[in-house]
């Protein structure tokens, strides 16, 4: 083994490396742009569904907002509380308090109680049906039952009942807003699960005509408004409207005498009596 070979090789590689070491050090001094490494770390911890329920355009943006402390970890509705705590701990911030919200359907007019004037024929989505004279349901406000919302839900929280009404599983619902956006009849609202009184109807028709088209329509008769605490429920445009700022005063008394059961008291899941057929699993 020749010493000269040792020397040459050490010199060459040492020289090359030193040269680039100097260059990088120089470049580092002159050209560095810094980015908070925590953003990437936080992003890793987030679920990565990019659903936008937190109000930012995606998990990455949410991570940036978290690092800048513009949002609280609990703003992500997809993470369970444990995961929220992990993020909060990593960032050394308060987890924040999230109020569980779920999607509620403002219609109970399943196919057995609401009239269908003419069956819709064609592209099988609610949006498409709604574009053809409203979809052919007698009630122009009611659910078309073609399952756009169930299809849109990324969390498998919505299933159609045997009578074509979407049933939300509140445990799976993350309040991501997708069903709200997709429904052409604007029938979904996200509301805190503590709000238990709900008018399950959007029909602006009053009295007889309303009931002719749907057995469970709100006819605007005003009984609930009279029975409820002062100011909790008002009849506006033929529809009972709940003022949720007075939610504390809500009680089951208000719904008892509703002639059509359009107003209900919900504890947990909506439509607990509806059967959701077993869904087959497709490969």
């Amino acid at each position, binding site marked *: 083994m020749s010493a000269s070979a040792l020397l040459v090789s050490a010199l*060459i590689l040492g020289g090359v490396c030193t040269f680039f070491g100097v*260059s990088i050090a120089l*470049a580092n001094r002159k050209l560095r742009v810094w980015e908070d490494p925590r953003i990437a770390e936080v992003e890793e911890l987030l679920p990565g569904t990019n659903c936008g329920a937190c109000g930012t355009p995606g998990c990455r943006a949410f991570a940036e907002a978290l690092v800048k402390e513009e949002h609280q970890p609990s703003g992500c509705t997809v993470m369970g509380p444990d995961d929220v705590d992990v993020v909060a701990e990593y960032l050394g911030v308060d987890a924040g308090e999230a109020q569980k919200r779920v999607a509620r359907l403002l219609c109970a007019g399943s196919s057995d109680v609401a009239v269908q004037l003419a069956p819709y024929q064609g592209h099988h989505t609610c949006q498409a049906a709604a574009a053809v004279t409203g979809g052919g349901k007698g009630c122009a406000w009611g659910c078309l039952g073609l399952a756009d919302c169930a299809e849109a839900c990324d969390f498998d929280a919505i299933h159609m009942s045997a009578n074509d009404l979407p049933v939300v599983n509140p445990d799976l619902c993350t309040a991501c807003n997708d069903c709200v956006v997709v429904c052409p009849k604007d029938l979904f609202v996200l509301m805190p699960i503590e709000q238990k009184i709900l008018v399950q109807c959007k029909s602006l028709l009053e009295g007889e005509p309303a009931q002719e088209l749907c057995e469970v329509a709100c006819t605007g008769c005003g009984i609930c408004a009279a029975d409820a605490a002062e100011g909790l429920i008002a009849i506006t445009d033929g529809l009972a409207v709940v003022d949720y700022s007075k939610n504390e005063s809500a009680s089951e008394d208000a719904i008892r005498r509703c002639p059509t059961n359009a107003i209900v008291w919900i504890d947990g899941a909506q439509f607990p009596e509806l059967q959701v057929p077993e869904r087959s699993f497709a490969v």
Partner: protein
Amino acid sequence: MGDLIWILLSTMVVNNFTLAYFLGLCPFMGVSGRVETAFRMGMANIFVLVLTSICSWALNTYVLDYAPYLRLISFIVVIASLVQIVEMAIKKLSPTLFQQLGIYLPLITTNCAILGLAIFQTNREYNFFQGLFFALGAGLGLTLALVLMASIREDAERAAVPAAARGMALVLIIAGSLSMAFMGFAGLGSAA
């Protein structure tokens, strides 16, 4: 000149780096989802390939004659460091260019195509210009493969791809098909 053009064309289609030599597959699989991205990746690739060709030629000619066993390690150190410096420079000097090309640079450093180019170029004893055209051909070939793959994938995204094939399985089958389509060029120039 004809010789140079031949090197360019044959590296681009006949012996396409990606589809015939299996070089640079990681970015080929990873960054071929959108045509725009794929194109930029291709451009960044061409840039680094040309840079690499020049560096390795210089190293071969001026330094490595004395210690051929240091070839691999010096190539890679030089490429990695240069790319790092270029990346920093672009990031600082032109944020828009960085958005378009720079973010791919770190991905490219550890890409077989780059080192593969340096090694093939050395094995084939290309001179400076031959090396340059070799690098251009390889880069254009990569870009072609990337863009074709990306445009097919963009269409496939809206197709009802069966669940089992979704993702990389489909991409690989498309790559296999592309590779078969490129086989038609095999032997180009050899039969004449």
